[in-house]
């Protein structure tokens, strides 16, 4: 007669994500079956190699580090309602800066100082790349979705030009920065084969968690993301907060770039683009914009990437299969949140009125936000 009380538990939002993941894997299995591969064998190998071999686990943990850092940054901007689509570009510029600075000072100062310098350079690069869209957004109200996206292409070409000319290692033929010797790269965590970048990633996620849980700035960013008008009404420095959100996520993207240079690659190569940005979007959404949930989902997505590579070759499945799975997960997630919403006790109608009632719900894109918002703003006469 009447439904039982639907009191949302703390885990309910994540259950939706898990359901989306399961659905995506089933769909992926269907695709595999259609290609004549045995999905059970494929998934069996995915799990047994990705989770069951020390190589798989080590690689997964190494892969986690940049994902954690990038996702933490993306979380800051999305929680503030700012859509930073330019993670990949910011990461590339950060990586290039880090590569140049690290190779310039390597061997001349102590390694930890070199790492710090490279990390700061990476963050500076990412921040610089986010600064352009940030200023355009804050000063002239240009939609950051478009500007950050476009800055990716600029970054791709600018870094590739720089690495072919001004910052190229003159001693080798391919376009790349000078190689940082293996012994000067980030050390492993107690002989585990996983470099300390993972710890940096975990610390970054924890810091972001503290930012939102315990600080005024985090509180204000959350309010801004949920209701910009209310933030203005309450007298919050909306423009400065928008700037902070974009710059922080850019800087963290740059840090992730530095992490890969210092921990894995040792140099920046032209056209290097690991594409963490897309994975980070999937990750942050699956984690329901909750900072600490990023950690298990980062592990899962890293496992998927590594396990996918390990299973692909023996079974003759294209490595793109894992990317397809990620895409399917986002798609299934979108569908799952739809069902979550109509099942919610606060039906559709009220949602239009008050917005989603679930805390930590991803904010919608600024659809109503005109590209030339200043027209409305200058007319508004607001301070």
């Amino acid at each position, binding site marked *: 007669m009447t439904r039982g009380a639907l009191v949302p538990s703390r885990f309910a939002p994540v259950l939706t994500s898990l359901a989306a993941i399961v659905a995506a894997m089933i769909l992926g299995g269907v695709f595999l079956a259609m290609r004549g591969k045995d999905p059970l064998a494929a998934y069996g190998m995915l799990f047994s190699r990705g989770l069951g071999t020390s190589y798989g686990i080590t690689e997964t943990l190494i892969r986690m580090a940049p994902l954690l850092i990038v996702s933490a940054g993306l979380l800051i901007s999305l929680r503030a309602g700012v859509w930073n689509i330019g993670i990949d570009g910011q990461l590339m510029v950060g990586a290039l800066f880090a590569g140049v600075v690290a190779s310039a000072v390597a061997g001349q100062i102590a390694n930890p100082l070199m790492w710090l310098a490279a990390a700061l350079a990476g963050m500076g690069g990412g921040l610089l790349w986010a600064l352009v869209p940030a200023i355009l957004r804050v000063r002239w109200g240009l939609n950051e979705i478009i500007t950050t996206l476009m800055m990716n292409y600029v970054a791709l070409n600018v870094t590739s030009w720089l690495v072919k000319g001004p910052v190229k290692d003159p001693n080798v033929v391919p376009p790349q920065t000078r190689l940082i010797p293996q012994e000067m790269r980030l050390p492993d965590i107690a002989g585990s084969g996983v470099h300390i970048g993972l710890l940096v990633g975990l610390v970054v996620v924890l810091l972001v968690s503290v930012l939102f849980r315990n600080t005024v700035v985090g509180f204000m960013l959350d309010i801004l993301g949920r209701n910009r008008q*209310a933030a203005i009404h309450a007298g919050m420095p909306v423009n400065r907060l928008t700037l902070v959100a974009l710059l922080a996520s850019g800087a963290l993207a740059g840090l992730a770039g530095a992490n890969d240079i210092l921990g894995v690659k040792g140099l920046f190569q032209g056209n290097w683009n690991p594409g963490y940005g897309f994975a980070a979007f999937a990750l942050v959404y699956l984690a329901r914009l909750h900072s600490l949930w990023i950690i298990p989902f980062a592990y899962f997505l890293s496992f998927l990437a590594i396990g996918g590579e390990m299973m692909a070759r023996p079974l003759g499945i294209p490595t793109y299969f894992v990317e397809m799975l990620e895409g399917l997960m986002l798609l299934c997630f979108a569908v799952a949140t739809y069902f979550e919403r109509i099942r919610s006790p*606060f039906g559709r109608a009220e949602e239009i009125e008050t917005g989603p009632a679930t805390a930590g719900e991803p904010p919608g894109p600024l659809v109503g936000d005109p590209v030339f918002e200043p027209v409305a703003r200058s*007319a508004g006469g*607001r301070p």
Partner: protein
Amino acid sequence: MANPHPPAPLSRRAGRGGNEEPIDRGPIIAMRDISKRFGPALANDHISLDLWPGEVHAVLGENGAGKTTLMNVLAGMYQPDAGTIRIAGEEVQIASPADALRRGIGTVYQHFTLVPNLSIVENVVLGDEGGFLPDLSAADAKLTAMLADFGLDVSPRTEIRNLALGQRQRVEIIKVLLRGSRVLVLDEPTSVLTPGEVTALLDLLRHLRDQGVAVVLITHKLGEALAVSDRVTILRNGRNVGEFGPDVMTGAAKESVRDRIVEQMFGATQPTETRHHGAQQSIDVSPGVAIKHPGHSEPAGEESRHSRTDAAFSRDSSFLGMTTSLRRSPSRAESGTTLLSLRGISTLGDRGAPALQDLSLDLHRGEVFGIAGVDGNGQKELGEVIAGQRAVSSGQIFLDGAEITNRGLGTATRLGIGYVTDDRLHEGSVAASSVTDNVALKAIGRQPFSNGFWLNRRAMDEEARRLIVEFGVKTPGPETAIGMLSGGNIQKLLLARELALAPKLLVCNKPTTGLDLRTARFVVQTLREQADAGKVVVLISSELDELMEISDRIGVMYNGQLVAVMPRGETDLETLGNLMLGGARRAFKVPA
């Protein structure tokens, strides 16, 4: 539960007077035992309701009584958890708002659904099943006649944004009637209207009723319900607690009906145990104690807490009449010193048009300064300018003699100027955030909520709990998202939030809009108390009675100017009404 009314045969649209067709006198809509639960709250508890063609049916009740939920069930917005709906005797499932409209149930919501930058005709054909390219000129012709019928002297090609709210409402009504609606549901239709527009709307409803439309009027305003209704249903805490049919409503003893309705709505005059619909729960109807359902957890866990709301309610039991209980001599306000001065203020509205023109005003300590005006004459902008929410383009503002012109919102808040917006859903509160976060919103950068960097979550939580109890806010707890609360409870929190900052000057824009009588009463009384304590209260309101009741002075806004400022004792409703309309208003044509 057995259906007490057998299905009624199809009733046909029929004129009341004039050439009558035979009428089958069965209800056009029969809702039976409708229940709807939202989380822990039972919004509708076995409500039954009949709608009859050719009748105006008022649904009365406090905020949160379940009126809107019930109508949303009828409009296909929600599916009931239990219960049946019959249209002309046939049991139906109303799957969606579009489905409801197809079945002849048209709803006009409090928040209009017209697209402001489309024309009337475009709005009317919008969503029509007329193919990809609708025939606008055909619709034009039909509309022109209908607009004139409805007293709208405008072209169908007029853009909606150029219409006043009252006019927009008529377009909404036309829109649903053109879709063939035989049932017209109006949710708080008069809350946005001027007194003259209200009279005209009520005339229009009578006219529609006489043409056989079943009109449902959801309202808080007893006067309107009594003036126009043939039938009244009273909801209280999700239950149907009383119904008065045409025999009573159109009978002679209207005053006694009024008393009986009030009693049913609030139960304040007769605190007895009532049983209803055979349900086994007892209802405690003593004022202020929330009715408990099984599984309905009591907020804050204190059953006998006596909140300020309840106190206000019981102190002033004659709340429906325009009593003089809150009036006090205006002489004290005159003796108050000037706190804030506006000198030659001009500013632009949201659309870039001048909203205030060369306006000057002094506000004195200890006074409630009421601002009356038809919507869109600059009251909102004046309130925002005083509160520092809106920059001025020329003129000066002084607080205690020191200039604070365009010093920004932060300065205004720091100097003790508070503001309660009229847009509580979009501007005043963050729906997805907790009650606690919303309470802390405006002072988050200060003690005790933070030291400027680190939040003090415990202080935030304590403050939220304190305000919830003190202001009698109905919420499962401080961690509940504020968007889940009813409008009245959100309003209480917004007011509480401002008062907690102990402002010297408080601007309230329409603080009682959409509130039930008890909450409205409480808000008004709180504002008066603030002024009596030496603060300045600026009250912008469309409720003239409310302004007349607590203001020391009343200013009337017309066309961005204060056209008159009068001590309350020297004016009356008619004078205010005239000034609000600027004397240039044409008589409204009521359809014959």
